[in-house]
């Protein structure tokens, strides 16, 4: 298949592994920010084939994992309401809240639907004028433009029975939080390619300069990832710390200006609580004042639902790359994707779930 097979080519991959091995003269810790990248790395076994000194630390870029328990509980309360059609990206259905998950709510009569695009929700809202359609708007800058567009279009089309429960998070504040953490070991970042497709990479340039850390914008196929790792190693070995674009077939420095405009027409930055990490200043989006009629959190008065995480696990440390999944004593025993004890075991893109699903033969 075009644009896929050439990026999974065995011979080219071997060349890149060898080149990374030649370039790396000492150990380096490189963090891939995005959960999609973690998923690819472990699914294809790239980490097994890297030279032993190159450690990939898995970052916080899994939107399902970092959505706070409180917001999940609020989402579940909405999904249980008989007048609500609750729409979500598929991954979110198996994330446990304080009482069960969306699968269970659906089984008990809740109208829960998986959508591929938030724009599908507008169609549902038009077809069901007597119901209230709520979309769980989660994700990084990648999903923000389409989520914003759904609200923009709902207003333009006069759709009054549509709203979104916003849990957007953004990448740069999370990277800063990791770099400023006393436990930080990360020496270079693979930038999240699809986030940069929207946002461009200009905003990472001051970050690379201030923290003297190489940031390589990287894609998701095995060869994309290996090229990103090679570029990061090259910079580290040469003592450079630049923003470098190794995903040029998708990403440009300015990103997608139209998509960015749409985000900021509808959303504005806010503080956001990350599951397993805590509040990171300026790390989220919320709806702007003029769109409050589409804000499910206001329409449904959810403030009474306050949740605290019942136990502790090391997912906060895993999300920052400070600890690796299999270093947790509960990994693969008490904590599995069927019985997740922490956020990173829940989503397919969480580092713990990726290790368990694809890589547990190496780290029993």
């Amino acid at each position: 298949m075009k644009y896929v097979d050439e990026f999974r080519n065995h011979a080219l991959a071997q060349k890149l592994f060898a080149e990374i091995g030649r370039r790396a003269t000492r150990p380096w810790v490189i963090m891939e920010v995005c959960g999609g990248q973690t998923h690819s790395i472990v699914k294809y076994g790239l980490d097994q084939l890297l030279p032993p000194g190159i450690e990939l630390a898995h970052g916080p870029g899994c939107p399902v994992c970092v959505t706070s328990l409180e917001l999940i509980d609020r989402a579940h309360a909405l999904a249980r309401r008989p007048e609500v059609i609750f729409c979500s990206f598929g991954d979110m259905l198996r994330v446990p809240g304080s009482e069960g998950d969306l699968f269970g709510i659906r089984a008990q009569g809740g109208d829960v639907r998986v959508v591929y695009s938030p724009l599908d929700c507008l169609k549902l809202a038009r077809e069901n004028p007597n119901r209230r359609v709520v979309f769980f708007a989660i994700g990084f800058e990648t999903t923000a433009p389409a989520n914003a567009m759904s609200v923009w279009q709902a207003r333009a089309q006069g759709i009054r029975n549509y709203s979104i429960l916003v849990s957007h998070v953004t990448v740069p504040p999370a990277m800063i939080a990791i770099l400023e953490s006393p436990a930080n070991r990360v020496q270079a970042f693979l930038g999240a390619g699809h986030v940069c497709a929207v946002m461009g990479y200009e905003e990472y340039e001051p970050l690379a300069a201030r923290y003297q850390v190489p940031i390589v914008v990287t894609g998701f196929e095995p060869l994309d990832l290996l090229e990103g790792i090679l570029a990061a190693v090259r910079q580290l070995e040469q003592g450079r710390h630049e923003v470098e674009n190794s995903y040029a077939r998708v990403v440009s420095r300015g990103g997608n200006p139209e998509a960015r405009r749409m985000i900021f027409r509808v959303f504005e930055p806010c503080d956001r609580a990350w599951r397993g990490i805590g509040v990171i200043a300026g790390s989220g989006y919320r709806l702007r004042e003029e769109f409050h009629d589409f804000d499910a959190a206001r329409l449904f008065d959810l403030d009474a639902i306050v949740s605290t995480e019942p136990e502790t696990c090391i997912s906060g440390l895993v999300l920052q790359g400070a600890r690796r999944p299999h270093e947790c004593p509960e990994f693969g025993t008490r904590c599995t994707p069927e019985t997740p004890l922490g956020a990173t075991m829940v989503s397919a893109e969480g580092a713990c779930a990726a290790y368990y699903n694809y890589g547990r033969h190496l780290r029993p």
Partner: protein
Amino acid sequence: MTDFTLSCPLPVAERKTVVLGHGSGGKLTAQLIRDLFLPAFDNPLLGRLDDQAVLEAGSARIAFTTDSFVVTPLFFPGGDIGKLAVHGTVNDIAMSGAMPLALSAAFILEEGFSMEELGRVVASMAEAARAAGVPIATGDTKVVPQGAADKMFITTSGVGLVPENIHISASNARPGDRILLSGTIGDHGMAVMAKREGLEFDGAIESDTAPLHRLVAAMTAAGEIHALRDPTRGGLAATLVEIAAVARIGVEAVAGAIPVREPVRAACELLGLDPLFVANEGKLVAFVAAADAGRVLEAMRSMPEGREAAIIGEAVEAHPGMVLLKTEVGGTRVVDLPFHEQLPRIC
């Protein structure tokens, strides 16, 4: 970074209600069987956990199986619920090496369901049964009020005769066996999904639904088959994991050797699904004695149902119960039962 509120959601593995995942052919289905059905019905015939039971009656061995069909939409590219109901049960019988003798068909119909559509389904079933050479010998009809079923559900059961000297069971797979797959994977599941979601792909995707008993007869004539299974719900992944678990063997498969049609691959990439977990309705996986693998493969390729057959891996002594896949770029990864329905990822 400030201090960390470390988190821990509660597990939801034990459920108070049935969820769709209990019917997905993945881990929840396995749990339900292990924790509820097996202990309740406890007997050695069921305990073999094959797709059919083999009963002994005098000197004859009779394969006996049943399957329900609830697919929506009823009609999809390459097939319909009626065809599936015939092929599914014929294939479950065939996976014991038996030749199917007859089927039963039970219909649960929803009040208000169109007579015209029902007629089309029944005609299609009749045609499928004729083509397979297996009569529908008995049946039953029930009608439930509107909303109590979704248009129509069909249950078919079947019996077949296992030839002498043929002993095929998942538990007979052993280290050294070669693993043969009869053709491309993912066609059926993606055809239904594409139709359900209203997606159109270049080079239409069609269900692979087909009866496999003739293919099995050609294979058993060509060599020693230890285990056979058709990778339906849960896909190839679930089938390999189930056989590895029952036979207490390791499985090592090679991603590059598993045939997947281009439009199916494209659709899976687009929707964030893995073809390994997507259902098939006209494919089988065989664990074959290594010395016979070449001959069996040749026999498969000489039949229309097995034209694209391939050797995709082997059974090993190491890591019993675990399936490993060699990836395109040379790494290895675990392949496990899906826990729930396969869910599209976010990005």
